[in-house]
């Protein structure tokens, strides 16, 4: 399934004082502003872009670290072939957090059941004879 194409809205024009502006390109609005305002907005834009880049880099690092921690957690779970450990872990990721817990389920042994059946049948045979 693919994401919808980002069609530009047919209503993305702004008309102010008889002049029409395309707002899909915000930087084009700057051409009609006084120089002082233009400079301020451009500087703010550059600073914000830098902030976004820095934030994303930090999140990616955190995400990678969480990935390594999760891998070693699962490796410990897999090494426990006896199923004696019930493990749980919590990891801070780049965009949130992850909690994982594992437990081993004890299943009923078929052999035990068959032994019980055999014993009961023997008992009944003895009683009826």
């Amino acid at each position, binding site marked *: *399934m693919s*994401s919808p194409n980002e069609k530009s809205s047919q209503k993305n*024009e702004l008309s102010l004082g008889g002049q029409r502006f395309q707002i899909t390109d915000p930087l084009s609005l700057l051409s009609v502003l006084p120089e002082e305002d233009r400079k301020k907005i451009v500087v703010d834009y550059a600073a914000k872009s830098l902030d976004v880049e820095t934030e994303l880099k930090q999140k990616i690092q955190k995400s990678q670290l969480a*990935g390594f921690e999760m891998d070693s957690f699962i490796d410990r779970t897999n090494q426990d072939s006896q199923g004696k450990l019930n493990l749980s872990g919590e990891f801070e990721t780049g965009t949130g957090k992850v909690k994982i817990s*594992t437990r081993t389920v004890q299943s009923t042994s078929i052999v035990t059941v068959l032994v019980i*059946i055999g014993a009961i049948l023997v008992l009944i045979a003895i009683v009826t004879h």
Partner: protein
Amino acid sequence: MAYRGCRRRSYRSYSYSRSSYYAPISQSVVLRQKASNEAMKFVRQAFFSLDYARLERYFSQYGREHGSSSASYARKTYPSWKCGAVGMSGQTATRILKIVPGILSRQDQLKLLEIYIPLLQQSLAEKFRESLGNKVIPALELNIFYQKAEALAKQVSLPVDWFVKGVFTDEELAHFQEIIRFLLIQRLDRSFKNVVSDLIELHNACRGKPLQIELNYRISALGAQVELETAQGVQNLTYTPSYEIDQSKVTEDIRGMLLRHVADSLIQDEANQRLASGMQNIALNELATTLGSIERANNPNAEAQSTLRIEAKGGTAVLEINKISIASLRQSISAARLKQTVLVIVAVCVAILIFNLLDSKKGGLVILTLFVGLPIGGSLWYSWKGEAESKQKQIDSYELAQRKVFAKK
């Protein structure tokens, strides 16, 4: 500026009742209050920075409104107010400062309005979340929900304080409000596209996994939750906002201010959109890592549960991922059925025994066997039957959840 001199203490008694009901304050009200406080601070500073000509105009105006004696008191006390030696009480401050916005230069008046606009915008966005935040929307009705949000944006009132009411004409105030609504509706448009993108990407990431996944998705812009078992059909939804602005009669200075605000706002939105796209990529990567980790838990009798919270492009997703040991469950079901079969065999043997005992006239033993054996046998039968049925239900819902991609809540 610190107040010096005698600070009058007004004695207020507070009564705290431990059992009294605390009603949380609406965030949109908090933001409007913040706008008022900031505007008050600005007007106060401007009052104490008025040049001589404007100050004289101020006192003349004050005299016309409140009388000459009040005006001469204000003129006399102005220096003390300015240095902080005398404080202004709430009512006095409002009376004194009310005239100030009308006296300020056009540039300062526009600056005053610029304090309001972003906070009013945020307040309106918060109002959305408060009105729509506790709704749960089926995924295929997203576009209808956004249309309702757009209708709300067009109707909701945007009250402004006395600071700006007396300064700008109704037409000018209407222009500002139109711009605020316009920008908010643009954000709705962007939010819709981001949410649809998130749902499709989450669906694709979870499809075909041998796990039970429950998704709880909350839209950031609106606070509402989206309910879905599959995102099939979401890609065909469309939402096109229909709010146009055509302001042909706007004065030059207002136009400049509005354009500045629009440019600033849209550039902020673009930066936020870039951040949101980056976050989506990171979030999907984290989801893939978590799903992969759980699948890697290869002990056949191991079960794993995971709760993953991620910030995606248009909202926050919380995924509950379960891996159950189908083999163990099937074994348990077989064991329960086997126990039921054994019980039947034992019951038949006991029946034969009772029949033999009846012949030998051991009536007491027969009655005891029936009274003790029947209830015990009956409860064991139903208990094992229930155990097998519930485990079978667990397997069925697990397999259904995998076919649908997301489990029903």
